């Protein structure tokens, strides 16, 4: 366990993340230009999606469908128990609880990518088609969360405005940049298969670790700039942001084990279940539950859960999977 954590904390990706946090805390003028940030996200999503698509072509859909179904079911179900915890335990309003529940049911692509990088580094094999879980777990929880928020605040009316807002939500959840890129790259990878992989490998595989390290440097500054907001959210959300990912992650590993994934694959499903969205969910929630306070959900997912998973969560879920698998 200690070895697993050490291997993660001393990896270039995590060390660069820490450097980014330090840069933000000391108010350095380090700042990535927007086009570079967008370029790095496109590269990471396309690369991970393409590798996943090639893996689906190699494994065949018969291996993929059961764990995929488990992933989508878990993603959709997470808001169902996080919502009452936030509502009753935290005493938060219905819309705030629903917004945070949606963030935690949805997933963080960067956390997942960092986990694949970690497994590669320590030589733990995993199913590359796990990228498909990333693609399909992003949206269901957001839709469930919005329905919970509307129900909880008594806004679920079949009026024209509600229908229009629902349509924009579905559009936001399914056609957002990350889902579109990831799903598109999965399809391209599945069609072009291993022969296609041979053609793009020098670009999409070899530089991957370096690009991830650079991207995490930027994400460190983004997370670090929000550390000040921790004071605003209170001790309940602080505890929630660490304990709920642990519970969800353990459930994910168990579900991966039950549906026949390898040790590495179950670890990745655990990491996905533990992770919280801070890009797709905030955008969709601002559109559909605009009354929710974005500081609460964003601080919890980006300021607490993301750094926790990146540093301690990922090796913890691997250690739990190692304990579970004989």
């Amino acid at each position, binding site marked *: 366990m200690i070895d697993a954590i050490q291997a993660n904390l001393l990896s270039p990706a995590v060390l660069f993340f820490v450097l980014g946090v330090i840069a933000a805390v000391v108010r350095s003028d380090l*700042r*990535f230009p*927007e086009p570079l*940030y*967008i370029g790095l996200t496109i590269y990471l999503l396309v690369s991970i999606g393409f590798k996943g698509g090639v893996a689906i072509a190699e494994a065949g859909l018969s291996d993929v469908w059961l764990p995929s179904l488990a992933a989508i079911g878990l993603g959709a179900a997470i808001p169902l128990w996080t919502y009452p915890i936030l509502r009753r335990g935290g005493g938060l309003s219905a819309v705030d609880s629903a917004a945070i529940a949606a963030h935690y049911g949805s997933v963080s692509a960067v956390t997942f990518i960092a986990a694949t990088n970690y497994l590669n580094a320590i030589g733990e094999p995993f199913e590359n088609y796990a990228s498909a879980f990333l693609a399909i777990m992003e949206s269901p929880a957001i839709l469930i969360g919005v329905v919970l928020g509307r129900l909880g605040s008594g806004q679920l009316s079949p009026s024209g405005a509600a229908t229009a807002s629902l349509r*924009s939500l579905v559009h936001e959840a399914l056609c957002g940049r990350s889902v579109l890129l990831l799903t598109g790259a999965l399809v391209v990878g599945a069609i072009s298969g291993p022969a296609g992989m041979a053609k793009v490998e020098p670009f999409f595989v070899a530089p991957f670790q370096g690009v991830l390290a650079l991207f995490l440097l*930027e994400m460190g*500054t*983004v997370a670090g*700039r*929000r550390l000040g907001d921790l004071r605003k959210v209170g001790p309940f959300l602080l505890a929630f942001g660490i304990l709920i990912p642990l519970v969800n992650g353990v459930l994910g590993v168990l579900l991966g084990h039950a549906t026949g994934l390898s040790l590495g694959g179950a670890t990745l499903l655990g990491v996905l279940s533990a992770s919280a969205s801070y*890009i797709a969910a*905030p*955008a969709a929630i*601002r*559109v559909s539950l*605009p*009354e929710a306070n974005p*500081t609460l959900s964003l601080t919890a997912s980006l300021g607490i859960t993301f750094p926790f998973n990146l540093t301690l969560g990922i090796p913890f879920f691997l250690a739990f999977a190692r304990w579970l698998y004989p």
Partner: protein
Amino acid sequence: MPTHPMTLLTIVCEAHARGRVLDLLRTTGAQGWTLFPVEGTGAQGGRPADIPEYTNLQIEVIVKPAVATQILEQLGRDFFPRYAMVAFTSEIQVLRAEKF
């Protein structure tokens, strides 16, 4: 050269409001707009504007005074309670009235 009075409406809002604001401009009859990412602080706190999803936008649109009033009313009713946003107008002169 004769000039015509028009209203320059400036909206500064969080990036998440982008789609809805542009829809509003279109449906109220604005003929065009200019949009750029900005950063700053306001009543709802500072916006680091570090990544595109969290940035602030400034939207500028030139419209007839009556249209500006209509847009402001709708912004005040439907947008201000939900989004981090300010909007203000200034009276300006343009050369080609038919463009707006």
